[in-house]
């Protein structure tokens, strides 16, 4: 029996190592593959085609075959959908963790789980149907556009934010939860000055999941306003280009090896873009935490 236990113990340790190594290996393989195929395509032409970069950035010239408008479109999408989803998601998470009584909490929790389970193509269809409905009723001019995509993406990523906010607040140790209240803090002061900062790591991971999802999703935007070669969007009601769709389009419809190489290049850029967004999220978090911990030297005389 002892032998058996020892075998299981060792076996499991080996398995854990193997699993971790396989994951890292898969990631390495993926990055290597993307690097080998995409690095060659990285040059100014990838972004701006034949046009002058300055002219394209300032909006004077179309970028032709370049991916600049798609980069801008993706950044717009991520920022817009985050602006919509962050307050709603964190707010709902706070409500569920702090204020909801058991019955509404169960109902709301079920609704969030349901929302989390909706495939993104359905969310796209929902946006599309919404526009059809609006056209027939209140706004005959309504059309698929950047704003519609951002709304649908926000809806798609909302559950990540709600669930991570809720669970990281609920996961705080009980002594921390009542520390502020026992000192005479109002519930609002307790939330803002103690609970949210203490739960911020978990909330940040939700934000990162949400940003990543909003940046990569293709199915939602496919039906709600993305177009190949749309140019840089000038307003919320414009059609737009986006990196994931651009990659999908090129990969499916390329006519030359050059176009396929451009798809790899665009994929690498998308990866860098989401990486940058993560870095910004981390930096913001670190700054806020630092400010909260207030390493000042007020008392050093």
């Amino acid at each position: 029996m002892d032998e058996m236990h020892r075998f299981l113990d060792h076996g499991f340790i080996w398995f854990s190592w193997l699993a971790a190594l396989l994951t890292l290996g898969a990631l390495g393989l993926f990055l290597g593959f993307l690097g080998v195929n995409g690095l060659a395509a990285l040059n100014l032409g990838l972004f701006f085609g034949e046009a002058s970069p300055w002219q394209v950035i300032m909006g004077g010239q179309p970028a032709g075959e370049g991916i600049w408008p798609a980069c801008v479109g993706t950044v717009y999408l991520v920022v817009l959908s985050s602006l919509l989803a962050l307050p709603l998601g964190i707010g709902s998470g706070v409500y569920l963790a702090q204020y909801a009584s058991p019955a509404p909490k169960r109902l709301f929790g079920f609704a969030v789980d349901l929302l989390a389970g909706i495939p993104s193509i359905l969310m796209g269809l929902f946006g599309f149907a919404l526009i059809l409905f609006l056209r027939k009723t209140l706004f005959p001019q309504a059309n698929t556009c950047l704003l519609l995509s951002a709304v649908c993406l926000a809806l798609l990523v909302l559950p990540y934010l709600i669930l991570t906010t809720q669970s990281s607040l609920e996961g705080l140790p009980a002594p921390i939860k009542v520390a502020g209240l026992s000192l005479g803090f109002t519930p609002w002061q307790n939330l803002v000055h103690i609970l949210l900062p203490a739960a911020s790591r978990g909330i940040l991971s939700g934000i990162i999941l949400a940003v990543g999802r909003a940046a990569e999703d293709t199915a939602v935007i496919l039906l709600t306003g993305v177009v190949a070669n749309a140019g840089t969007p000038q307003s919320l009601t414009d059609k737009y280009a986006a990196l994931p769709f651009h990659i999908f389009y090129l990969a499916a419809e390329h006519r030359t090896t050059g176009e396929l190489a451009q798809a790899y290049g665009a994929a690498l850029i998308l990866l860098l873009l989401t990486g940058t967004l993560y870095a910004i999220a981390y930096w913001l978090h670190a700054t806020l935490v630092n400010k909260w911990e207030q390493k000042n030297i007020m008392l050093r005389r």
Partner: protein
Amino acid sequence: MGTKEHNAAALAALIEHLSVSFGPRQVLKDLDLTLEKGRLYVLIGRSGAGKTTFLRCFNRLNECFPGCHTQGSLRLNLGNQWVDIYRNDLPVTELRRRVGMVFQTPNTLPASVEKNITLPLKLVLGLGKKEIPEKVEWALRQTHLWEEVRDRLHLPAGILSGGQQQRLCLARVLALDPTLLLLDEPTASLDFRSSQKIEELLLNLKERYTILAVSHSLSQARRLGDKVLVFNEGRRVGTFERSELQQGERFQGLLEEIF
């Protein structure tokens, strides 16, 4: 206050018919008690006897836990006025400032040593930048922590030892000028030396504050208590005066009788 009117100024609290339940479970049952000012009361009893719930009645912290229902009256002497805290004579935030609580495990905020005291001063007392440093130093001196942490004020409170963290929690409470102190097994998570320091502190502090402390140890109750209140199944089943505590055998005998 009826018959007690004549010595009301010497009293800290009057409790009448106090019952607390959480959902269907009644934790405190029809409690009557009078607390005198400037004394240290030690509460002992088995776990689940309702000691912690009784402490939390004084700052209405029970209400932060689901299903709580409190009946009866609890009146506090806040120096210039008596307030019936369950008749909303006083905003709960003000009540909790006046009735400071220290918990079983140190619950320092995950922030700097200094901010653990400055944040409540700012938010609860509304103090400005000028008054705060003085108050922080005063509070840390009260708990004999100043010399130990004066160079580490900006470091996270988490790097302090358990005993130091617990004294920081006490300092944080004292900074808010309380009248009553609630201590829920304040030495339960500490080693012998740290416990001893906290006990010394409490003996000093009891001259200025009325203190209610839950203890897990009979010997500690004997060392600290002016009065020891024994709880069992939500009721107070015995009270020992200081003089009775020193007669070890008698105290022991009475306890054995009760449990």
